[in-house]
């Protein structure tokens, strides 16, 4: 199986390089049959990469610990489920996973284009995709091979880090990778468009679904990562501006900017160059993200670029950057566009400001992430920034973005009239103001949270107002009931309302983030059985203790009664787990979620006589973050459901 895996990887690399050669010569000689052969080569590469992945999976399932990667991330006691997820727990398997998914995506692109004759663009699209695939396959074959064996046969593997043994670990990395990898497709189309000079809106229309879908995957990936941190790591938060998190957030910001200006190009035919720049940035940042997470430079920031793998990633990114700049300069004349932003009071200009802010957020986050490396290179001293930097810089920027989210749908394309603005703005502005006054009356006096709540109310109100107006006019025309008209509108204009739902979800998230970070309560204490600890309105009573075995772990659990106003409303179980093969116990988090607040409990210590130490927090409105992000994803999905009408 090991040899089979190695051979499959080599075969995949061979097929990819072969098809690149075929495509190139097919393009050079204008020979359709060579291009067809190149496509078949890519499909063979897809099959070979799939076989290599199956080989690695079966090595995990058969506990083949002579394979170094399997020995490092699995052991006999690991539940079957996690043996599968161990596939992408480390660097080497992640790279294979990347290559595998990319090859499948390439197969999908070929399938999608099956009915269209190969125009001048598509061979270049395949060429760019194949180039990216060959890079990852080369790394797998030559630098970081998951099928490398040990020179001895260990009796058991080292096991999977207990922190990674969580359902979040199953979905978070692959979904994030789907997002990273998905952007390769629009990137390939953009590059192809520049090479052939078809820089019109064609590539954007063709890749809209890939863009939005990749964006959705990236969003889900980021959210799942946050949730995993929240329910597993036990420090009570979901986001720490840690480099790994930033690595996924930065491409998300840039791709969000791209999705917005792509709409402008579709509508108005302007901002062509800008979109080319944004999609390339997104792709490069996705590669950079993979590199940050999986190259090991986070392990040791001192060795930036010095590790074997890092060097290759840097070379790849430099080639892509130089190539991209060259193509932009080369095809600059193609880009000359008639038309421009006509008024600063227009939807185009709000999109432009939204872009500036999104890119500023991306830039600030990137700068903060790599600042230690930059400052060391420049001054010799390593100046670092952490959460305070990101909170201080990104919070005001994000609030501006929320404001724009509210304003944007109220302003028409091209040029908005003042009376039109006044009519559209009045009610949302009053709603937001009222919300702000009520919040202030309830004692919310800090500027940022107050602004966050007010602006979110504004966004919500603009969306609801627009929806109600649209329902009314539809009712007048069709005579339908409100509910029916509402649903039909959602479905018939799903691109627009999909976007509105995303924005509504964003507003909910902002409320959740502001409330849970500004008004969090924390407490800790050591309890004997029967004693209690109070926090906010809650009293936690330590009622009983038990110990039991389950799967590959021993669990110590304390049952806590949750009381409010003297009545027992619920119970929670705080746990510490001792995993086979792990030296240290792991702290499990107990969470009681309601719409109003999360009660968050960890048990960092168990002492003599089962005396327990508890850390407790109340996180107000935290669940709004998960609801809001869920809405964002649903809105995105709604926006890309294709219409049945066949476009001619």
């Amino acid at each position, binding site marked *: 199986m090991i040899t089979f895996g190695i051979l499959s990887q080599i075969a995949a690399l061979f097929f990819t390089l072969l098809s690149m050669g075929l495509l190139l010569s097919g393009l050079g000689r204008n020979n359709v049959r060579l291009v067809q052969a190149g496509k078949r080569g890519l499909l063979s590469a897809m099959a070979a990469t799939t076989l290599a992945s199956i080989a690695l999976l079966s090595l995990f399932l058969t506990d083949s610990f002579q394979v170094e990667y399997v020995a*490092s991330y699995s052991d006999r006691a690991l539940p079957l489920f996690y043996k599968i997820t161990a596939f992408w727990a480390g660097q080497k398997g992640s790279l294979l996973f990347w290559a595998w998914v990319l090859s499948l995506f390439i197969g999908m692109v070929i399938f999608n284009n099956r009915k269209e004759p190969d125009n001048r663009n598509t061979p270049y699209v395949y060429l760019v995709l194949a180039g990216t695939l060959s890079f990852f396959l080369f790394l797998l074959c030559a630098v970081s091979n998951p099928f490398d064996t*040990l020179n001895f046969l260990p009796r058991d593997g080292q096991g999977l880090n207990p922190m990674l043994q969580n359902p979040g670990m199953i979905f978070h990395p692959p979904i994030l990778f789907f997002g990273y990898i998905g952007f390769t497709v629009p990137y390939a189309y953009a590059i192809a468009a520049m090479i052939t000079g078809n820089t019109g809106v064609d590539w954007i229309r063709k890749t809209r679904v890939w863009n939005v879908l990749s964006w959705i995957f990236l969003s889900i990936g980021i959210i799942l990562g946050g949730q995993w941190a929240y329910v597993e790591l036990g420090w009570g938060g979901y986001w720490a501006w840690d480099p790994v998190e930033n690595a996924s957030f930065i491409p998300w910001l840039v791709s969000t900017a791209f999705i917005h200006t792509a709409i402008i190009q579709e509508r108005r035919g302007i901002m062509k160059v800008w979109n080319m720049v944004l999609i390339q940035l997104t792709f490069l940042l996705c590669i950079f993200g993979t590199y940050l997470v999986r190259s090991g430079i986070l392990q040791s920031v001192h060795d930036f670029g010095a590790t074997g793998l890092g060097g290759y990633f840097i070379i790849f990114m430099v080639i892509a950057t130089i190539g991209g700049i060259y193509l932009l300069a080369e095809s600059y004349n193609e880009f000359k566009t008639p038309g421009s932003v006509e008024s600063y009071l227009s939807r185009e200009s709000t999109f432009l400001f939204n872009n500036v802010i999104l890119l500023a957020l991306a830039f600030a986050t990137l700068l903060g992430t790599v600042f230690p490396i930059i400052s060391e290179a420049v001054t010799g001293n390593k100046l670092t920034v952490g959460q305070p*930097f990101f909170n201080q*810089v990104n919070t005001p920027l994000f609030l501006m973005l929320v404001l724009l989210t509210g304003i944007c749908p109220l302003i028409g394309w091209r040029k908005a009239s003042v009376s039109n603005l006044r009519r559209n703005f009045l009610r949302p502005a009053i709603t937001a103001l009222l919300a702000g006054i009520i919040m202030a009356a309830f004692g919310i006096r800090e500027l940022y949270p107050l602004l966050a709540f007010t602006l979110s109310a504004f966004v919500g109100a603009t969306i609801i107002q627009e929806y109600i107006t649209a329902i009314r006019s539809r009712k007048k025309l069709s005579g339908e009931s409100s509910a029916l008209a509402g649903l039909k509108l959602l479905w018939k204009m799903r691109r627009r309302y999909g976007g509105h739902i995303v924005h509504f979800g964003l507003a909910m998230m902002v409320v959740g983030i502001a409330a849970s970070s500004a008004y969090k309560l924390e407490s800790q204490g050591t309890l004997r059985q029967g004693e209690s600890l109070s926090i906010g309105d809650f009293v936690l009573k330590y009622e009983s203790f038990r110990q039991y075995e389950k799967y590959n772990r021993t669990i110590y659990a304390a049952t806590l009664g949750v009381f409010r106003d003297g009545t027992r409303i619920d119970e929670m179980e705080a746990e510490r787990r001792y995993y086979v093969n792990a030296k240290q116990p792991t702290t499990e988090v107990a969470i009681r979620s309601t719409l109003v607040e999360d009660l968050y409990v960890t048990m960092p210590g168990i002492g003599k006589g089962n005396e327990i*130490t508890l850390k407790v927090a109340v996180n107000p409105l935290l669940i709004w973050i998960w609801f809001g992000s869920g809405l964002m994803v649903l809105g995105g999905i709604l926006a890309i459901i294709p219409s049945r009408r066949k476009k001619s």
Partner: protein
Amino acid sequence: MKKSNRKVMIAILILLTSVGFLIYRGLADTGVYYMTVGELKTSVLGQQLGTNEAVRVGGLIIDGSIDYNQRDLILRFSLKDENNPKETIDAVYNGAKPDAFEPEIEALLEGTYDRVKNLFQADTLLVKCPSKYESEQDNEQEVGK
């Protein structure tokens, strides 16, 4: 350039300037030097550091130095420089001991350093995950494959 274009450009310029200022203030207000234990004790920059000035320090947790009061959540330990183990500091952290906190693991502290007592008061404590990425042990095993 058309008049409306110019207005948009000016607005963007103002926006960019304020973003630049925001980032600059952010770096100036929250930037913290990172040093190894050895650098904290012997480098010029380390010695200039005030007792109340925040600094980030990284080093290995010394075996046998861990004293964890899990009742009151006070964690005391000592750190040594990775390359120069003779340089050590004592540290105290008021909080729960992270699950991955083990001897010989690299810890990253942020807080203030009292040179006279050789005591680091840590406000935050990060421990590098032992097996999340490639561990050193694996690399040793790779020899001769």
